[in-house]
């Protein structure tokens, strides 16, 4: 199991577009990707589940990744979050 945390920087929080980008990116991995926000938990590959986290700007997301390609998935997802996800769409 691998994990990392990322704090949402998008001023509008986890709305449709960022949730879609994250789910699309996450789908390329075989590993199970769970995203936690406070008490809530969701499937990182499902746009709707990510939206239902209701995560706003400043919310800390905790990613828990497990599966055959967890190492690569964790590293690439974390880079995706920090470098392209929440910035200048």
């Amino acid at each position: 199991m691998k994990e990392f945390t990322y704090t949402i920087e998008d001023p509008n929080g986890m709305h449709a577009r960022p949730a879609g980008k994250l789910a699309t990116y996450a789908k390329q991995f075989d590993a199970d990707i769970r995203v936690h926000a406070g008490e809530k938990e969701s499937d990182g590959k499902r746009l709707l589940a990510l939206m239902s986290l209701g995560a706003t700007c400043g919310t800390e997301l905790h990613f828990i990744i497990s599966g055959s390609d967890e190492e690569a998935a964790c590293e690439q997802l974390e880079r995706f979050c920090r470098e392209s996800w929440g910035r200048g769409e």
Partner: protein
Amino acid sequence: MLFGKKTVSLCAPCTGMSVPLSEIPDEAFAGGMLGDGFGVEPSEGHFCAPVGGHVESVAEAKHAYTILTDEGLDVLVHIGVDTVRLNGEGFVPRVSAGQYVKTGDVIADADLELIRKKGLPTTVAVLVTNPEKIENAEYRHGSVACGRDAVMSFRLTRKG
């Protein structure tokens, strides 16, 4: 075996003109990145469920509604483009998360005039965000009535 052969339809979430996804003035919707579906240019500000299911979430900004159908389809109804920026202004949700809705049940009202005044397109996007579960989608575009006219019909795949 009839499994996998079932036809499902998504109907118009509002009265207006339905258009292909590619005509929605937003690259994320138009490019199909968020899923398969269609757009409707609303002529009235009343919105309904395009399909029955459980309301999974109502966005903080009240502009986006998600429905999980009994067949496991994830359906997003997104009112207007970039309307997340309005922070709820102009939107009145008529449902809450966890509620069960039938096709045609009212889900929200929106002030189309206000959205236009803010310089944002009012186009509504209806998307299946897990398109791997559907195939053979067909569309019927043109003038549509809220909750009455089917715009998109497809079959369910065996996946998932």
